[in-house]
């Protein structure tokens, strides 16, 4: 069983009467790339703020590395990026060296390694002249400084161009594969998180509504073949006769999650078997559709 590296129990944060977080109990296991998914204002950043000690919790507990009482010490072993911010007059090298010094470890090539990793090694301009994408990259380098065991990234791909998004995904994947670093990453773009995350937590209006593994998520979103027929039992019998057993029924609709490329043979068999076939189409529940269904509609995720 995977070791738990971070856990929250009933984490609640109220601003006046507004629940920014409402009894969030989340578990982060060693080696997870945990994708925290939610719309803007769902509570993702507030959750991170509470975890990093930047906002006081109203109720609930946080446990990091088995530590509940002295969270400051535990946080020193973590890396985080929430709204990347550095001094405007420092260049990326100086910014990371500054972080090295306040974290108290010697550079030993770490700064150069990280600058190369986020492709800022040749950049000498100061932070104030950075594009949003460059700021994000430096923020991620800052979070990875000192090879922390847990890395918290809040919307890391915000402002990155398509190539930057791919690069960032590769960086996270590589670090995760090479060092087993545990990541918790928030985003409102589920399809992007889907490419890196091993587990997901869906948050809406401060409530963690579902936790799901990558495999389970794809179980819920895979393609299906839908058929609308006049006689369900007869249609099932016809399908069974041609070797298709895994048929699910929903009203007068049949759904198949296999044999997706045999729609031609299936249609012919049903018609030849005397079944009236009103509709047959292939459909995939996208990650976004799944997410929207989960949170009960509304705006696009």
């Amino acid at each position, binding site marked *: 069983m995977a070791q738990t590296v971070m856990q929250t129990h009933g984490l609640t944060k109220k601003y006046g009467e507004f629940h920014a977080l409402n009894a969030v109990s989340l578990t982060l296991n060693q080696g997870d790339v945990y994708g925290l998914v939610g719309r803007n204002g769902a509570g993702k*950043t507030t959750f991170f*703020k509470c975890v*990093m*000690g*930047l*906002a*006081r919790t109203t109720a609930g507990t946080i446990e990091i590395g088995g530590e509940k009482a002295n*969270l*400051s*010490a*535990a*946080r*020193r072993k*973590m890396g*985080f990026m*929430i*709204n990347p*911010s*550095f*001094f*405007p*007059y*420092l260049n990326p090298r*100086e910014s990371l*060296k*500054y*972080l*090295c*010094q*306040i*974290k*108290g470890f010697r550079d030993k090539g770490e700064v150069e390694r990280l600058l190369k990793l986020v492709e800022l090694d040749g950049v000498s301009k100061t*932070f104030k002249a950075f594009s949003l994408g460059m700021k994000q990259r430096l923020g991620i380098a*800052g979070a990875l400084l000192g090879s922390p065991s847990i890395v918290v990234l809040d919307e890391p791909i915000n402002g990155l161009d398509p190539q930057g998004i791919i690069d960032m995904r590769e960086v996270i994947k590589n670090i995760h594969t090479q060092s087993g670093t545990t990541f918790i990453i928030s985003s409102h773009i589920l399809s992007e998180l889907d490419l890196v995350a091993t587990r997901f937590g869906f948050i809406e209006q401060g409530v963690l509504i579902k936790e799901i593994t990558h495999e389970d998520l794809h179980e819920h979103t895979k393609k299906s073949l839908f058929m609308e027929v006049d006689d369900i039992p007869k249609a099932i019998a016809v399908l069974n006769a041609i070797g298709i057993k895994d048929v699910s029924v929903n009203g007068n609709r049949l759904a198949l999650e296999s044999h997706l490329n045999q729609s031609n043979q299936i249609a012919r068999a049903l018609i030849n078997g005397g079944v009236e076939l009103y509709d047959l189409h292939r459909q995939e529940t996208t990650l976004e559709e799944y997410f929207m269904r989960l949170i009960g509609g509304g705006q696009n995720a």
Partner: protein
Amino acid sequence: MLKLIHGEFFRVLHKKNIYIYFISLAVASFLLALSRSGRFNTYSIVKDAINLFYFMPPLAGGFLFSAIYTDDLNSKNLITLVGFGISKTKIVVAKLLLFVLFGSFIFALVPLYHCAVYAILGQVATADMMATIYAALFKFFLITIAFASLSGIAVYSLQRATFAIVLYILLTFNVISGLLKVAFNTVAPNLASCLISGITDKLLAGIKGGGAIALPIFEYVIYVAITVVLSVVVFHKKEMEF
């Protein structure tokens, strides 16, 4: 805490504006001395130094205050420090120590520079003059530290750079102490002696006249300690501003 001071030292020394600013001040003071050089008398070097020192808390201290305290707010670095698990008490104390270190360096250099400029212009300071200049400067140095520490409360409680700098400048130009004296004139006529300028005046008088300095030193330490404690308390109470 040493790690934080070390990092902050690195950061402030990499702020190029600090060099431009202080070089500009040095050039301005040289030009001022040059313009006055035709009217020099024996005591000009001391009198001019003291006049110059009146502007040290707002001009030199103000810039240092912005570099050490409010840059953290503008660049949201307090979030980074707290998120990295550095205790808020350590941050408050480290910032004050850093201010004292940089302040000591600049305040120690200023009389040397002033005397060097006047020497170039034909006025050489005697040892007595130097002692008088340094004693006067010491008062302004203490005032600068105390006002920075007091304004630190605004930094940590409001987390708004502009407000903190305005407060610091108002304090150093004696606007706030002047208003307090007027407001409490009838209730507390001796209020001035309890304010930081009064405490440092007593200390300076003690140093010059060889009188008791223990009490004003004690009062000064208490004053700074109270501001540090208040900074820590408000910092702990205040949520980080994003």
